[in-house]
């Protein structure tokens, strides 16, 4: 009898553990991003005083999706933009790649888009001779579509570490 009770207790404990574990499955995921930062995973911009440096940020658009380039052909369309907050000591300027033109099955209008992987170059210049590190919040704003649907504008947020050396 004590053995039976012990076994029942063990069974009850296992059942509780399993039900708790399964409860984690019920949570809803976040709404999807259509673009991801692929390289570097933790961006670092190294800046030397009075000398401009270039850092490449590589992004990837999900398969079967496209996003408007930085200069779409229509002003109704929402351009891709890398937003870098102004810094007192460092000037940061993104340089965008040219989009490529596509036409969709249902429409003859050309769209200037990014698909697959694309790179944005960030030019950095320390305004004065200072050293140190700072982390700035960057934001890639974009609007994505596939062949027959478009999705609301989104924002991919990530941090960039800026290291200023002499």
């Amino acid at each position: 009898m004590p053995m039976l009770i012990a076994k029942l207790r063990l069974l009850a404990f296992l059942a509780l553990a399993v039900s708790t574990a399964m409860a984690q499955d019920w949570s809803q995921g976040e709404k999807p991003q259509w673009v991801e930062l692929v390289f570097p995973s933790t961006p670092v911009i190294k800046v030397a005083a009075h000398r401009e440096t270039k850092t490449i940020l590589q992004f990837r658009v999900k398969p079967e999706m496209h996003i408007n380039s930085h200069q779409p052909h229509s002003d109704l369309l929402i351009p891709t933009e890398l937003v870098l907050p102004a810094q007192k000591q460092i000037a940061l300027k993104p340089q965008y790649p040219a989009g490529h033109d596509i036409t969709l099955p249902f429409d003859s209008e050309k769209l200037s888009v990014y698909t697959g992987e694309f790179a944005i170059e960030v030019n950095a210049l320390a305004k004065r001779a200072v050293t140190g590190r700072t982390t700035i919040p960057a934001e890639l704003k974009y609007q994505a579509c596939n062949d027959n649907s478009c999705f609301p504008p989104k924002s991919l947020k990530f941090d960039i570490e800026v290291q200023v050396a002499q």
Partner: protein
Amino acid sequence: MKRNIVTLIVAILFIAGVIFYGTRGARSAKQTAAKIGATGTVSGDDLTNKMAPDFELASLDGKKVKLSDYRGKAVVLNFWATWCGPCKVEMPWFVALENQYRAQGLEIIGVSMDDGGKDGVQKFVQQMGINYTVLMGKDSVGEAYGGVQGLPTTFYIGRDGKVLDSVSGLISKSEIEDNIKKALATSAAAKS
């Protein structure tokens, strides 16, 4: 001793019940997530055969418009935005279908999900020659319709106010027309 055994058995049965109903809930959540899939949208399938959620939105000339004002008509409720290319393709079809079927009781309503205010929408609507009602949408209305994410998303509503079908993404003009005919063939709900 007996009481301990009974307590343990009851506890095990209770937890087994939690697991059973929990797996059903998790399966349902996964099915919903699967519906979202690559497009990131819930298609609004959950509203089929149910009363279309009522709402009140402002038209471009500032009037308050309720969906329930159109009870007795076949309604095409189309969520769109000025930045949506596929939406722009189907708009001339809606214009033509509105002209063709208005006398039979068709009402097309475009709900703009633009964030930038009505001036840009007004200009766009004029340029496109839109001849049907356009309303300025709100997130709460989108949420009521399954969380409209992909545009265009269109709901076909019968004369009785029930959703017949919902479509996310661009479809052909003939498919749109077929859905309109189904909506026109419905009867208004009998007054109780």
